[in-house]
């Protein structure tokens, strides 16, 4: 059953890897899942998506202020950078790195443009992650 479940995930992961959405760190996460922790990947992905959505919300609020605190903005971006590095969400991580440069320059315009890119990239990866989890669940129910 575990092998069947993984096939769907591997298919999705392969496509996300080939387009550069994910890097090899995600493959390492798949290897951490075993019988004693069968929901590890699902829980990891869910945490990343929930955290990421919250962070993007906070970044939007921060950059909407009349007086932007770039240190606060950078702190939120660091969080998303760390989370994305941990799950292998390469494009999100790289966008965060660009974002941090604009925070250092205290460029509101740069930050706003990069936030737009971050939103697109994050929702792309989280959408595909959610589709992956749905497929896993469907396969699990089909083999019951």
């Amino acid at each position, binding site marked *: 059953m575990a092998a069947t479940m993984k096939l769907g995930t591997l298919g999705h992961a392969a496509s996300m890897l080939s387009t550069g959405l994910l890097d090899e*760190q995600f493959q*390492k*996460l798949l*290897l*951490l899942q075993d019988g004693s*922790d069968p929901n*590890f990947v699902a*829980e*990891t992905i869910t*945490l*990343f998506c929930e*955290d990421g959505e919250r962070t993007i919300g906070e970044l939007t609020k921060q950059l909407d202020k009349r007086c932007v605190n770039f240190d606060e903005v950078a*702190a939120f971006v*660091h*969080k998303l*950078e*760390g*989370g994305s*590095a*941990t*799950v*292998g969400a390469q494009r999100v*991580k790289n966008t965060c790195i660009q974002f941090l440069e604009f925070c250092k320059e205290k460029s509101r315009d740069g930050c706003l443009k990069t936030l737009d890119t971050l939103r697109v990239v994050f929702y792309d990866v989280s959408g595909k992650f959610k589709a992956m989890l749905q497929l896993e669940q469907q396969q699990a129910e089909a083999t019951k």
Partner: protein
Amino acid sequence: MVSNAHGSPVKALLVEDIAVCTFVLSAMLRRFNCEIGVANNGKEAVDFFLDGKKFDIVLCDKDMPIMSGPEAVEKIRALGETDVMIVGVSADDNAMEAFMNAGADVFVHKPMKLETLGTMIQEVINKKNAMI
């Protein structure tokens, strides 16, 4: 293959404010049968030591609310905790200097590799075994 310590498991303290990072690092530490404590920021980590808790290894993120990783490392060392292996972990390329200046033993760039963690845990176990 990490060989177990004769007796007690390795006690690890994870200092991290990012939930997904805590989740993944905890899973890695469980692979090596570690006992895991979790602090959500540097101050909570220092409080563990002030409460008399002992750890063999500390994995510490850099940027956290209330107290940063390097600041916590400095305070932990100032408490006389010189035996504990302290590992700075960050996605920030510039974090190494801050951690090493604060008294960390080693810096690892995020994401932590399982093999790298295994090597450090084995080093801790060898040290514990040498002391028996």
